[in-house]
C-alpha cells in the first residue's frame, strides 16, 4: 500500500477545508482500504470522518421525511424501527449485502460511493478506463459474464454493486452534500452516472464535495405494506448480486394504485424505467402483467460480452420481485433476506 497522510477533523467544516486533489474521505473503510491494499487506489491523503458524530443521526423531519446521517452504519440503519416500519425494503436490501462484520463497519454514504467489483478495476495492472482513463478496457475481451447489459459504453461495461442504492432509487431518495461552494441536494437518480466516454466520472459529486445525509421522502412510506428486495447471487449469503430488484406497490382496493421498481447489478447505476412503472398503475396484480412490466424495464438491454443471459435473468428477477411485493411485506424479516430460497408461504426453508 502506498503511504498517505491521515487527518482526523473534528467538524464537517474542517473536513471540507482539508480536502485537496488526490484526497479521499474515509468512512467505514470496507471498500477503500481494500482497494488501497490491491493498489487500485492510491490516495495521497485520507480524511477520516470517524470523529464527526453529527453525521450519525437518524431522524424524522417535521415534513415526515427521514433523514439519515452519512456515517450511520448499514447494520444500525437496517435495524432502525422506523426504517423497518416505513421503508422495509431498505432494511431487506441492507441485510442481503456483505456480512455481519462488514455491515457494522460500512456506512450509508460509503455505500453510495462504493466502486464497481469489476475485477479489472480492482487489478492495478489491468487496462481500465474507469480507474485509469485512456488505458482501455480489459473486461471487453476478458471475464465479463457478470458485467453490464444496460447503459454501458465501449469505454466501460462495469456495474454498480450496491444493494442499498436499488431501493433508494425506487423510493426517490435525496442525497445531501456539502462542499467548498456550500450545500446542495442531488436526486438519487442523478447521483450515479452512466459511463459514456468518461467512466472515471462515477457520481455527480464535484471535487471536494462530501455526502452529509440521505433523505427518504414521507410519501415513499406509502409503499411499506407491499415492498420487497430480491437478490439473485451465486451463493445464498455474502455475495454480490448478479441481478436484483427492489419492488414496491401502493395497493388500493385490490388494484395497484402506484408502482415503483428498480433493478440492480445490471448497469453502472440502479435502473429505473418510468414507462415500466406506469404499465402497472390501475391494474390488478397478475403474473402476466408483471412480466410485461419487467420486459419494459429491460427494453434496450444488450450483451456487453458473455452476458446475454443476464437480460433474461433481469426480467425474471423483476417479475418475481413484483409478485413478492404484491404478496405483501412479511411481518418479520426473512431468515435469508432477499433470497430466492427464502421460504414462501408453507414451503420448507432451503439451504
Amino acid at each position, binding site marked *: *500500500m502506498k*503511504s*498517505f*497522510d*491521515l487527518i*482526523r477533523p473534528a467538524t464537517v467544516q474542517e473536513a471540507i477545508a482539508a480536502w485537496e486533489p488526490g484526497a479521499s474521505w*474515509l468512512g467505514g*473503510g*470496507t471498500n477503500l*482500504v*481494500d482497494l488501497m*491494499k490491491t493498489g487500485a487506489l492510491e490516495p495521497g491523503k*485520507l480524511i*477520516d470522518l*470517524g470523529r464527526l458524530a453529527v453525521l450519525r443521526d437518524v431522524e424524522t423531519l417535521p415534513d415526515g421525511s427521514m433523514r439519515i446521517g452519512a456515517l450511520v452504519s448499514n*447494520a444500525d440503519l437496517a435495524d432502525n424501527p422506523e426504517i423497518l416500519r416505513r421503508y422495509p425494503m431498505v432494511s431487506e436490501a441492507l441485510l442481503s449485502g*456483505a*456480512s*455481519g*462484520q*462488514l455491515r*457494522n*463497519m460500512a456506512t450509508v454514504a460509503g455505500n453510495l460511493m462504493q466502486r464497481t467489483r469489476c475485477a479489472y478495476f480492482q487489478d492495478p495492472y489491468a487496462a481500465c478506463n474507469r480507474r485509469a482513463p485512456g488505458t482501455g478496457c480489459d473486461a471487453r475481451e476478458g471475464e465479463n459474464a457478470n458485467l453490464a447489459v444496460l447503459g454501458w459504453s465501449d469505454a466501460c461495461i462495469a456495474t454498480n454493486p450496491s444493494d442499498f442504492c436499488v431501493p433508494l432509487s425506487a423510493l426517490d431518495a435525496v442525497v445531501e452534500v456539502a462542499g467548498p461552494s456550500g450545500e446542495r441536494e442531488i436526486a438519487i437518480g442523478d447521483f450515479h452516472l452512466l459511463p459514456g466516454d468518461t467512466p472515471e466520472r462515477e457520481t455527480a459529486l464535484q471535487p471536494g464535495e462530501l455526502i452529509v445525509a440521505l433523505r427518504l421522502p414521507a410519501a415513499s412510506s406509502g409503499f411499506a405494506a407491499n415492498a420487497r428486495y430480491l437478490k439473485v447471487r451465486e451463493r*445464498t*449469503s*455474502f455475495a454480490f448480486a448478479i441481478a436484483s430488484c427492489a419492488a414496491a406497490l401502493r395497493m388500493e382496493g385490490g388494484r395497484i394504485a402506484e408502482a415503483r421498481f428498480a433493478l440492480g447489478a445490471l448497469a453502472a447505476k440502479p435502473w429505473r424505467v418510468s414507462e415500466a412503472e406506469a404499465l402497472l398503475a390501475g391494474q390488478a396484480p397478475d403474473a402476466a402483467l408483471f412480466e410485461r412490466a419487467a420486459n419494459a424495464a429491460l427494453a434496450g438491454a444488450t450483451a456487453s460480452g458473455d452476458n446475454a443471459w443476464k437480460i433474461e435473468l433481469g426480467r425474471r428477477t423483476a417479475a418475481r420481485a413484483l409478485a413478492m411485493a404484491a404478496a405483501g411485506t412479511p411481518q418479520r424479516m426473512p*431468515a*435469508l*433476506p432477499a433470497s430466492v430460497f427464502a421460504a414462501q408461504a408453507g414451503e420448507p*426453508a432451503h*439451504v
Partner: protein
Amino acid sequence: MPHSITLTVNGRAHEVHLDDPRVTLLDLLRERLALAGTKKGCDRGQCGACTVLVNGRRANSCLMLAATLDGCEITTIEGLSEGGDLHPVQTAFIENDAFQCGYCTPGQIMSAVGLIAEGRAGDDPERIREGMSGNLCRCAAYHGITLAVQEATRRMAKDEMEDAA
C-alpha cells in the same frame, strides 16, 4: 505523520505510537501487542478470521486503520475467558466439535459472540448460518459451528435469566 492513540484491549489500556498510518488493527494486535490469537486469513475482509469486537460490535480488524481507533475498546479471543473459565461460546465450540484445523476458530468465536449480542438470530439455525456467513471455514465445520452457536445462545439466555432471578 506520527499518530498517538489510546486503545483499551481486553480491558487493559495501551498507549500506542504509530509511525505509519497504514497499520491495521489486525497487524497492531498481532505484531505490536503480541496478541496473535486474532488470525490473518485473506486480509481483505472476505474470510472473517480477523474478527474482533470494537466497542462491543464485531468487525474485520484487517480493514480498520489503527490510527482511526483512538479511544476504542477492543476485545479479542484472548479477552473472552474470565478467571480461567472459558466463555460459553468457547465451551460450546469444544463440545460441538465446531472446528478441525482451528485457524478460523478465533474469528468464528468472536463473530458468534457479536451475533449473539446483536440478538438477530436467536437459536434458529437458518438465521445463525446467515448471521455467520462472514466467517469462512475451509475445513467446512459449519454444521458443528451452527450447533455450537445455537447451544451457546440458549446457555447464555438461561444464565442471564438465572442471574436476574
